[in-house]
């Protein structure tokens, strides 16, 4: 099950904990992977670990021109982009009443606008191929909100609305568009939290622990697979039961 042999996947934010796990999972299922991110070193380390069928495609997602060029570079390097995983994301937490325009805009730009541009960039070849998988990484916070994260929550909720709209438009062409909404996952991003904060979070999670990057990667692998061809416009929540939406 879940054989991606011959498929090519572009993954953004592949230098991070969740992105790296997604890349490994898709690669492990036989896909050729394009690893994108801003930091070249971890991307190259990951590519070296994966061996064959791994390409490093550095890109700064706040650079519009670089972003527009990325789908083409990925298609040249791999031969196609059959699967797009928009995983890259940033946070700039701030109390809402203190939030600056810059804190708001920078998060919207990377998490929502860059995701839109990449989806748009891969659409034409996917339409022609009559096959495609778009998987956008949202967040539980996009569904239930989080104090200090008005910008992040708005961007992640925006991703969901966009993902569903795309799903409507291209479903008849064999392209699915879905989101995965992780809860609290143990990565560098959540390591910034204090022990006290972590304990407070775990209390709210029925599973009583943070999730693992591999548990997000497994959800992405499913949505990328041929078996998930009838699943589109959905949000797969992977959050240990902390929000049953």
């Amino acid at each position, binding site marked *: 099950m879940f054989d991606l042999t011959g498929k090519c996947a572009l993954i953004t934010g592949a230098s991070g904990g969740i992105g790296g796990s997604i890349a490994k999972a898709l690669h492990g299922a036989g896909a050729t992977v394009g690893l994108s991110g801003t930091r070249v070193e971890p991307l190259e380390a990951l590519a070296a670990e994966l061996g064959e069928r791994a390409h490093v495609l550095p890109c700064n997602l706040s650079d519009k021109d670089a972003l527009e060029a990325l789908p083409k570079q990925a298609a040249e390097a791999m031969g196609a982009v059959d699967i797009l995983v928009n995983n890259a994301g940033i946070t700039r937490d701030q109390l809402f009443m203190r939030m600056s325009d810059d804190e708001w805009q920078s998060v919207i730009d990377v998490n929502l606008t860059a995701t839109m541009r990449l989806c748009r960039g891969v659409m034409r070849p996917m339409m022609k191929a009559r096959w495609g998988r778009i998987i956008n990484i949202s967040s539980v916070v996009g569904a239930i909100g989080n104090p200090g994260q008005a910008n992040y929550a708005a961007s992640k909720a925006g991703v969901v609305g966009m993902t569903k709209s795309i799903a409507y438009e*291209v479903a*008849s062409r064999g392209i699915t568009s879905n989101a995965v909404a992780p809860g609290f996952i143990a990565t560098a991003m959540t390591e910034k939290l204090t022990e006290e904060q972590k304990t407070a979070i775990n209390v709210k999670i029925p599973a009583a622990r943070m999730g693992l990057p591999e548990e997000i990667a497994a959800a992405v692998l499913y949505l990328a697979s041929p078996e998930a061809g009838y699943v589109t416009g959905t949000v797969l929540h992977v959050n240990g039961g902390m929000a049953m939406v």
Partner: protein
Amino acid sequence: MSDIADRVKKIVVEHLGVEEDKVTENASFIDDLGADSLDTVELVMAFEEEFGIEIPDDAAETIQTFGDAVKFITQAS
């Protein structure tokens, strides 16, 4: 009929699955030939490929009928 019109007609017939005699000068892709908005985008993509031209979005919007398409492509190529 010109070579261009023949090639355009072939694409329309294949893509929309319509009878060749339905594809007349004034036949509207959407109103007469059953295309949806996504079909029209795909037709433009197919025209671009067949004729090696680029059809910008604002021009693509003016291509509503078979005749529009032939006229635009004749001028562009």
